[in-house]
């Protein structure tokens, strides 16, 4: 259906992004002029050593943190120039986020966790409930919708988190080491779901991972080395 969306339109463009963190009286440069382009329906992985700035790049790309300089475009919009108050709602609709630690609300069931992401951007539950149930079915948890996170395994929780990231039909999914806390087989299943979504819904994927095999399955592989993007090797 979304073949039109997957045209080579730029979904995320990062230009000369720089970020430093204070450390006592000194500052530590984490990103030293990073450039990045992710196109519609494309899957891109970023690898790098710990401390190379991968997570910082994801946070900046998601508008969760402020860069020292540079520009971040969500399609045509430079989010570094966006009004602070309107950014969260726009982010909720434009991006889906998956984290290493799932971050599900423990007081909500799996289905309610998925629907919460829709509520957060002001969508009526009635209009998205069917999609939420479909997503649960797609991630293989159709029977577990009314279970709370404590009743789910790590892999199941990550699948719920994935369904939550997709509920608003985002243009892009930012996945920060989504398989980091999972065993190999479960991790493979999660990655498969992420890539499947790229193919079927045309959603772009920016995947931060340590797993070379997983990175190898994306369209492009990037390597971040001490705050600088290395040439692509895929």
């Amino acid at each position, binding site marked *: 259906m979304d073949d039109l969306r997957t045209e080579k339109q730029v979904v995320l463009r990062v230009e000369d992004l720089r970020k430093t963190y204070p450390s006592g009286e000194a500052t530590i440069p984490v990103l030293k002029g990073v450039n990045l382009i992710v196109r519609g329906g494309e899957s891109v992985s970023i690898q790098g050593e710990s401390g190379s700035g991968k997570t910082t790049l994801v946070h900046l790309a998601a508008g969760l943190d402020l860069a020292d300089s540079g520009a971040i475009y969500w399609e045509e919009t430079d989010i570094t120039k966006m009004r602070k108050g309107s950014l969260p709602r726009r982010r909720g609709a434009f991006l889906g986020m998956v984290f290493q630690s799932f*971050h599900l609300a423990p007081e909500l069931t799996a289905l309610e966790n998925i629907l919460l*992401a829709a509520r*957060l951007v002001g969508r009526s539950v009635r209009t998205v409930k069917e999609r939420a149930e479909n997503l649960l079915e797609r991630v293989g948890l159709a029977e577990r919708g009314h279970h709370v996170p404590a009743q789910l395994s790590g892999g199941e929780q990550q699948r719920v988190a994935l369904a939550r990231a997709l509920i608003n039909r985002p243009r892009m999914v930012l996945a920060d080491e989504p398989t980091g806390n999972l065993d190999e087989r479960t991790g493979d299943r999660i990655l498969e779901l992420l890539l499947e979504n790229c193919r079927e819904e045309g959603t772009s994927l920016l995947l931060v991972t340590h797993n070379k095999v997983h990175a190898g399955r994306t369209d492009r592989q990037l390597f971040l080395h001490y705050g600088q993007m290395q040439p692509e090797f895929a």
Partner: protein
Amino acid sequence: MPWYFYLAFKQLFPSGRILSFFTVVSVMGVMLGVALLLIVQTVMNGFSHELRSKIVEATGHINVVTSGMLMDYDDLVEELNDWPGVRWSVPIAQGQVLMNFKNRPMVPNVHAVDVNVVEEMEYLERFLLMGAKSEDLFDDSVFISRGLARSLDLRPGDVVDVYSPMLLERLERNEIILPRELEVAGIFSTDWHEIDEATIIVTLRMMQDLYGMGDGAHSISLRLEDNLDSFSVAREMERTLFAERDLRAVSWQEQNESFLWILNLEKNVMLFLLLFIVVVAAFSIASSLLINVIRKTREIGLLGSLGGRPWEIGVTFCFQGFFLGVTGTAAGLAMGALIITFRNQIIGLFARFTGAEDSLQQYYHFTFVPARYEFSDFVIIGVSAVIISTLAGFIPALRAARLRPVEAFRHG
């Protein structure tokens, strides 16, 4: 429903659990504080109302006084009886006498009434014990208060010697004086300690004789129709009826201004002090919510990353304080009202278990706990408890709202 209210409810009533321990404890804290406040205020209102009623019963609504003695007051009494809202008026005199019974002297207050005022005598009869009649009061008899009768071991038919200050003046002039011998015609109890402790009632004629008052009286006591504001009636009388005369109308509120002020102060101080119970409950809410915010740091970060605005995240926690306050207050008001409704059964049960039934009657002179609802108490207690609880949620809310998602992920 906006997501922040939805999530607040879900945090208070999580899916998959019947009740949240935090919610139950927080609601109970506010509930107990509010219930206690309501019970104390309502019972104090009851006592205050009882005391006010006793004052009015014992002293009348208004006293008409002059700078000296009231002489030739018959026309005035008639005028006052014709005044709208006045049920009857009676000339009275008050003072102190020395009383002696079996060589045990006492100095009781003396209250003298005109026995010709039938309404006043009928009214007096309600206070008489052991079947005594108001018509038994003659110039040579006396009604004795319960406390005085107990102190001197007096019974109807006993004869007491009464000396007045006027007789003592004659004693100073070396004249031989004889006391008035008065027979105890009845014992009365008003349930107002100040009167019941040591008071005698005599006829106005006897008082005039004892005090050398001639045909005078000290004042005229008025009894008004129910629901009339004594203070306003007194002011209106002074403005019109007494405009050109040396007379003053003093309402019972003015006569007992200090006492009523203390009653009011006592109630307000109790409200202020007991409000701290609600504050303590609110601190427990604040502390629990703050722990919740710290515990849910990553979740709060997630809410921001999924599209939640800072103020919306703040409302999620502030609303919990408000909701706990409203629920606890409603439950507290209901619980308070329930306990007040069954207060006498509860006290009775307690007294029966502790064997203190007789003590209650003997020392506190009541067999029931008075209570009186005042709408303003419900409003003040309810609004205060909700405001305090909401404020308790404000600090955690502020912390949650200020939490940047990236910091929440980093430090959570």
